[in-house]
Each structure stands twice: as structure tokens, then as C-alpha cells.
């Protein structure tokens, strides 16, 4: 999360994934608050566990680029938005609730137990 202060930051996908399978994740934050730091760390962890090499994370700091908030209809922060794969989904919060985060990311069907 050292680099999250930058407006955008991309985690390069690993070479093994095909373009179609790449998850384009965009994390909206406002400054380096404990919540944003936690969200980034949790996201990183989830992605490494479930989508190793199939993801790309972009961190948008709204304090620097407030005009970007309207485009993705950002109200709550932090918010994770991804456009691919469809449909457009949003996850708000610091992703500390791993279960819900996985359901939200559709990496686990809702209701199915661990």
C-alpha cells in the first residue's frame, strides 16, 4: 500500500493469464486513511489467494482526482469496482469481512458454506 498515495497504481498481471481472464479492479479511496490501507491490504490478499496472476488493481485517490468519483457513482469509501468480468459490481468497505468480499467478488456463490 506504499504506492497507493499515487493516483493510480497497477499491479501487473502475471504472464500466464489470458487477457480475457484478467480482473480489472479499481479501488477508490480518499487519502491514506486506516480504512483505505486496510482495504488495499485485504484486496491484495484476496486476489493473491483466489486470482493469482489474473488481476489488475488500480487505486484511485479521490482527494487528488475528485472528478473521478461521479463516473463510477462513488458515495461510500473505500469502494472496489470492477468492470470485467461483467456485470458491474461494487464492494464497499475495507473488505475485512472476507466471506462477504468473496461473495461480492463472485469467487464464491452466495450462501455456500466454507
Amino acid at each position, binding site marked *: 500500500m506504499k504506492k497507493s498515495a499515487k493516483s493510480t497504481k497497477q499491479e501487473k498481471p502475471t504472464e500466464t493469464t489470458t487477457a480475457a481472464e484478467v480482473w480489472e479492479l479499481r479501488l*477508490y479511496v*480518499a487519502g491514506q*486513511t486506516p*480504512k483505505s490501507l*486496510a*482495504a488495499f491490504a*485485504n484486496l491484495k490478499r484476496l486476489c493473491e489467494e483466489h486470482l493469482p496472476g489474473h488481476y489488475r488493481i488500480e487505486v484511485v485517490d*479521490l*482527494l487528488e482526482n*475528485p*472528478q473521478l*468519483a*461521479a463516473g463510477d*457513482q*462513488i*458515495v*461510500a*469509501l*473505500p*469502494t472496489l469496482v470492477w468492470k470485467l468480468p461483467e456485470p*458491474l*459490481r*461494487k*464492494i*464497499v*468497505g*475495507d*473488505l*475485512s*469481512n472476507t466471506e*462477504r*468480499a468473496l*461473495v*461480492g467478488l463472485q469467487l464464491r456463490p452466495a450462501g455456500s458454506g466454507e
Partner: protein
Amino acid sequence: MTKAISTRRAANRSLPKVPTGIQGLDEITGGGLPRGRPTLICGSAGCGKTLLAMEFLVRGAMQHNERGVFMAFEETAQELAQNVRSLGFDLDDLIAQKKLVVDFVRVERHEIEETGDYDLEGLFVRLGHAIDTIGAKRVVLDTIETLFSGLSNQGILRAELRRLFRWLKDRGVTAVITGERGEGTLTRHGLEEYVSDCVILLDHRVIDQVSTRRVRIVKYRGTTHGTNEYPFLIDEDGISVLPITSLGLQHDVTDERISTGIARLDAMLGGEGYFRGSTVLVSGTAGSGKTSLAAHFAHAACGRGEKCLYFAFEESPGQIVRNMRSIGLDLEPWVKKDVLRFHALRSTLHGLEMHLASFQKLIQEFQPEVVIVDPVGSLIQAGSRKDATAMLTRLTDFLKAQRITAFFTNLTSGDASPEKTEVDISSLVDTWLLLRDIELGGERTRAMYVLKSRGMAHSNQIREFLLTDRGIDLKDVYLGPEGVLAGSARESQEAREKAAAVLRQQKVDEKQRELERKREALEARIAALRKELEAEEEESKRIIGQEQLREETIRQDRERMGASRRADNGPEAAEPPARSRKTPGGRK
């Protein structure tokens, strides 16, 4: 805050306010919304919250040079622009001029998964960004409660809302927050908890199928404000609040009098007619000639070169013109010259507020000197009696303030007391003419009298009211031992009286002639007596003359005898004639 409190204490009026520019709202809030503070506008669906909020921004941008941010949670910028275009607001133009920013915030629950701790900083960022881009002074959040349906963590939402309102205050923007009315609470999610400076409640009621919108200021800290419910309406010029009770009675008055259009009626009203700027009410039963009176007044006003606005609720303009032609009044030239304008509509067409607003609009546009409302009672159909009275009070005040002479007609039903108007406006009017029917001898005649006329000496007699082909004619009714008679009863009574009068005259003449004769006879007798006296006088004179002659003769004889006897002229000699002179007188 301490500063705010001290200013508030210093003087109520010094609480800084932001004029909304909305007609009437500034009047009841005593100058507008609290500057730099949030104001909550709540009400049920469709009561005009969004519109009021939008008008606040648009008027601010156009009239007070205060730019605004509209944060919409329910409608997109496009939809909003479309919705308010009918009110004459061009949002796209304002946005292009950078006077307004519309930010549509969409929060869809099904798109959102909540995973842990979050805040609403995104909203703050967006709002702050919008405010900064144009330097906005006014902010509208419409309807922020939508967030409650999009996000489930109430604890976070509430804390964030509290922070938001604090933040708005710190930014120094005047904010309007709308909220949907909840069950037993002002807003569904208790927004009034956070916004405590000014709360305005909007209401949209339908009573007897007529809808009325009302606004009430529930609370306004640190200032006096109107506490009543005020009707308001939304028309093509936006919102106008009608503060019925806030109007004072401060209008100027004039001594100028204007003709009623009927010479005899002018005479009844102190010889000069109505006061300019007064309110005249004509009440009467059906067919008693109210409209005819109104038409006469209109005709006279137009003849003076004044303009007249005629609100007709029961007849079409064409019908009125045609009907008035039958009593010899041609209103058509005035209509053609556009000095007489008819505005005919059914009173049930829209609510009272709408009527009042259209009245005001038309009056301001046409600038008439005379306004006729025919009949005023039908306005009840557009609302309740109380509302109609309130509306007419307001109309009367409005007309008086403009120095417009108002002429109302009112229908009284046959069985009701004629001194009672359907709408309780009798106390509002300055001059009240009453038309009534008198049924007598198998015919119905109209009668009229002046029930009251403030500020002038007026006749209190009943006049017979005739509708002739040359207009209205007022005739004295017969007042005598037989009571009040009108119509042919009056005519026959008058004929009878005439006959009686002739008879009386004849008697008088006869008496006079008799007297003359007597006088002549007496004078003749006096002359005869005088003649007799004269004759007697003649006779007496003649006798006296003879007597004197005789005495003279005797004296001469005596002298002659004395001379012959040489008698001396003794004293006795002179005596005898004197004595003898006395004798005839004494004898007489």
C-alpha cells in the same frame, strides 16, 4: 457558534438570511433561509420538495448571483432539466454558464456488497468538488435519505449524515435537504434530528377532489416566522406561496368617487357613487339583476376610459355581451378596444390558490381599474367555505392595495336570509347592495337597497329595480299606509292616489269659490250701508244748512228791527245769535 448566538440575541433581524427568491416564501420566513446553515424541507411524495429546492438554486443563481450545487439522489440531471423546463427554468443554460452543477448520485443496493467498515467520504469529495468548481454558495441534497435504501449500515449512515451537516456548516454553504415524510415523523429516517435550524414542511392535500398544497415552517431557530399553514401553488412561474394572513391593512385610500353607471344609484350613494378602490358586493337571489348591475358598472368604467377585468364563472363572455345588449348595454365595443377583458372559466377548473394566482397574474398584466367577479360565491365549489373566505380576503386586500375597485356579485338562495352571503365576505366589503324580489299581487318585482356603504351618506330607502331596454332604472317604491308596493301594484296605487288627489282638489276649489261668493256678498252689503250713511249725511247737511239760513234770516230781521228802533249795541244784542246758533245744533 457563540458569535451566532450573540448576534441572534442582539437582534432577531440580524440573523443572516438568504433570500430564496420564491414568491411569498421569503415573506413568511422573514427574509429567507438561514445563511450558511442547512434547512430541511420535508413532505410526502409529490408535494413539491424537489421543485422548491430547485427553484431555490435557480433563483439564487439568476437573481442573487449565488451559484448552486444540486445533488440529486433520485433523478438524473436530464430528468431534472426536463421536469423544471415547464416552469421556465433552463438548467442546461445555467450549467453551461457555470452557475449550477447537477450531480446525480445513484446508489443501487443490488450493485453493492458491503464488506466491513466504510464511510461516505466519496459523497463529501463529490460535493466538495462540485462546490469548488463553481464557487457555490447554495447546496441542495435531494433526497439524501435514498442512501438508507442503498446502504444497510444505519450506524455508519447516521454518523456520516451528522458529519455531513456539520461539514456543510463549516463550508458556509446554505443547504437545502429534502426528506420524505415518515409515519408520525417529519422524515422517514429522522433527518430532523440533524438539521435543527430550519424545518419547512410541505403538504399536498386533496379535499373534495380539489388539491391544495400547503407550506408550514415547523421551526426556524433564532428568528420570528409565520407559523400558519400557507397555501402555495406551482404554476408556469414556479412556486408562489400565498401568505393570506400576513397581509396588513395598510393600503392608502382615496376620496375619489366613481359612478356606478346608474344615475339613480349614484344618487342613493351620496350622489357620487362608489369610492375608488373600495369593494362592492351585490347580493341577491337568482335573476335579480346582479350581472346587469355589474355590466353597468363595467360600461361606466370603460366609458371613463378605464380598464375593466371581468371574471365570469357562470356565463361565457359572448353570452354576457348578448344578454346585456337586451337591456341596451353594448359591451362589445369595449371588448374590441380591449378596455374590457373577460376571463371566463368554471370555478371548479382548479383550486382556490390557482384561482387567486391567476387573478393576480391577470390583474398585474392587464392593470385594470375595475375588477368584477361574477359570482364570487361559486368559488366555494373550488374549495371549502373557509378557504374561499380566506382567498377572497386576500384578493380584496390585493385589489385594495392596487387601488382597484372590486365589484363582486353573490347569489343568495331564496330561503336563506338575504343579509347572509354564501361566502362570509360581508364584513370585507365597503358597499353592499342588496337585490331582492317582492312578490305582490301575482307578480314579482325587483327591489334594491343599500345595505351598507362605508364612509358615505347613503339612502336607506328601497327602490324598485327595473330592467328596461335602456338599462337599469330605479324607481321610488310606494311607501304608505298600505306598506311597500312595487310594480303594477305601485302603479295602481299611484293611480288611486291620483284620483283621490283630484277629488280633494275639486273640493278645495269649491270651498274657495264659496268663500269668494260670501266675500262678494258681504262687500256688497258694506257698500250699501256706506251708501245709506252717505245719504243720511247729505240729508243732515242739508237740514243744518236750512237751519243756519233760517237763523241768519231771523238775526238779520232782528237787526233790521233794532235799527229801526234805534236800540244800542248792548252785550245782549250779540248774545242772541250765539244762543240761537247753539239751539239748532242741540236740537239736532
